[in-house]
């Protein structure tokens, strides 16, 4: 018995939380009219681990490892944001060599995050070769980071006042060799992906984000810069050793998925430039501030520290009441705002385009869910 439902033209399709293309445990409830999406509602919270509650029950040093788990792909930026916020409350200054080391490691981590994104994104779009190339480059990079920090993924390397270990000669020569190698690999990425007809057809003109939407939703990072707005904390609100380096902020012009992809590729090149300059200008000196107290009791007050992570602006908001434990820590994560634009951008697209758009926003779900 077939009834022609004339009023009810949409049906509900559930994407996730276990899905190869949702980059973690994200659930998107779609209402579809045939192949076209009329409504897309992300349901999050499947990765909620209670970081902010843990912050209130830990002292400052004990909370430091959590920062690596919030966004595990660019953990060093989160380490840096948190350490800088607490250093502001304590009034500590990190010595110059410590700042340079922080920048070098953080930029290497940014490259590794973008490599994972390229690989996983192209895997979502159906291409299997780029992920092998990207992860191979990433393994070379992780050998360098592993040597200094001891971890491959969830780093907990920065300390309040500086860094605990210095760079050695082998790291520096290894990094220079890596920079040379990655630059030659960019040619491969360009011919394999950027000039690929299928890729261009799937990404050009898809998922347009306007400036007005960017302001209203508070977008940051490459998602924002693809739409032509040159807002990067490293240039707009310089911190650490970034003022000493000369680098550009790549921006797109149309605001579609292809522009966001290109911004990330060009950002990797700019990160290599920063690392090169930092290695050339690396000053001698201590790597850790002297007189860092063992029991940290920051002054009462509040502080907001913003750093640029691979996904956008990470803001660490700490309210301290002068105790050993923070009173409140709020982690302002870029993926939260970036994902909230999905319901608006996904209307009237195909499901395949939804996958392309969702991937181009580069979300890390445990960061959104904290």
């Amino acid at each position, binding site marked *: 018995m077939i009834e022609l439902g004339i009023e009810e033209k949409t049906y509900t399709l559930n994407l996730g939380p276990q899905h190869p293309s949702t980059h973690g445990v994200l659930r998107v409830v779609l209402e579809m009219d045939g192949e076209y999406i009329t409504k897309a509602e992300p349901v*999050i*919270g499947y990765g*909620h681990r*209670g970081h*902010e*509650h843990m912050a*209130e*029950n*830990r*002292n400052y040093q*004990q909370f430091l490892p959590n920062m690596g788990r919030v966004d595990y792909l660019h953990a060093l930026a989160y380490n840096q944001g948190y350490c800088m916020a607490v250093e*502001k409350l304590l009034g500590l200054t990190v010595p110059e060599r410590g700042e340079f080391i922080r920048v070098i490691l953080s930029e290497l981590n940014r490259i590794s995050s973008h490599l994972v994104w390229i690989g996983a994104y192209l895997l979502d779009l159906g291409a299997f070769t780029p992920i092998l190339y990207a992860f191979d480059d990433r393994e070379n990079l992780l050998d360098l980071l592993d040597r200094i920090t001891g971890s491959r993924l969830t780093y907990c390397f920065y300390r309040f006042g500086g860094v605990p270990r210095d760079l050695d000669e082998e790291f520096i020569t290894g990094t220079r060799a890596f920079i040379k190698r990655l630059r030659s690999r960019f040619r491969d990425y360009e011919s394999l992906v950027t000039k690929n007809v299928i890729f261009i057809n799937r990404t050009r003109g898809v998922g347009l984000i306007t400036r007005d939407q*960017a*302001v*209203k*939703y*508070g*977008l940051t990072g490459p998602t*924002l810069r693809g739409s032509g*707005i040159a*807002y990067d904390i490293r240039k*707009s*609100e310089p911190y650490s050793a970034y003022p000493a380096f000369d680098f550009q902020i790549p921006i797109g012009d149309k605001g579609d998925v292809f522009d966001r992809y290109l911004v990330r590729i060009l950002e990797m090149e700019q990160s290599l430039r920063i690392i090169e300059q930092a290695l050339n200008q690396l000053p001698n000196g201590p790597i850790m501030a002297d007189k860092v107290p063992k029991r940290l009791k920051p002054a009462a*007050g*509040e*502080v*907001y*520290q*913003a750093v640029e992570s691979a996904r956008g*602006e990470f*803001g660490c*908001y700490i*309210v301290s009441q002068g105790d*050993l434990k923070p*009173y*409140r820590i*709020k982690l*302002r994560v870029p993926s*939260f*705002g970036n994902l*909230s*634009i999905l319901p*608006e951008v996904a209307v009237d697209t195909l499901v395949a385009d939804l996958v392309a758009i969702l991937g181009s926003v580069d979300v890390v779900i445990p960061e959104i*869910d*904290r």
Partner: protein
Amino acid sequence: MLKDKLKTALASLNLAQVSDGDYARTGYHLEVAAGPGQMPAVAQAMLDQGCFLESLTAVDLRESFTLVYHFASFDELCRTVVHASLTKETKEAKGAQAPTISLVYPGADWYEREVYDLFGIKFAGHPNLKRLLLPEDADFHPLLKDFGAEPGND
């Protein structure tokens, strides 16, 4: 200068405090204190000057809540923080309530849902005030100060 333009725009709203922040110590250029009911007007004034909503959160101060809004701008470095103090219970309504700013800033939609989820603060006029992070049938608000604190972890 964006800071002066913001000060002029906010001066007409009759707010409790609009003052310069100590950037080196706190990271704010402008510190504003407002009542929760004035927030939609403040948000509209910030949007008219081209600022985006950086973050929206709440702090449980045991006797009251403070809603904390951070605004920044893409074009010029100027971070504004707005503190809105909220009483926990009023004579009219049980449980804290504040008007929503999600009609001005659609991005605030999820932030306000998160604050509702973690603190129990309701936002009047919010189009879709459901829990965001915890399961839909959860019956507690974890970031309240009287929710299961750990004894002596030093």
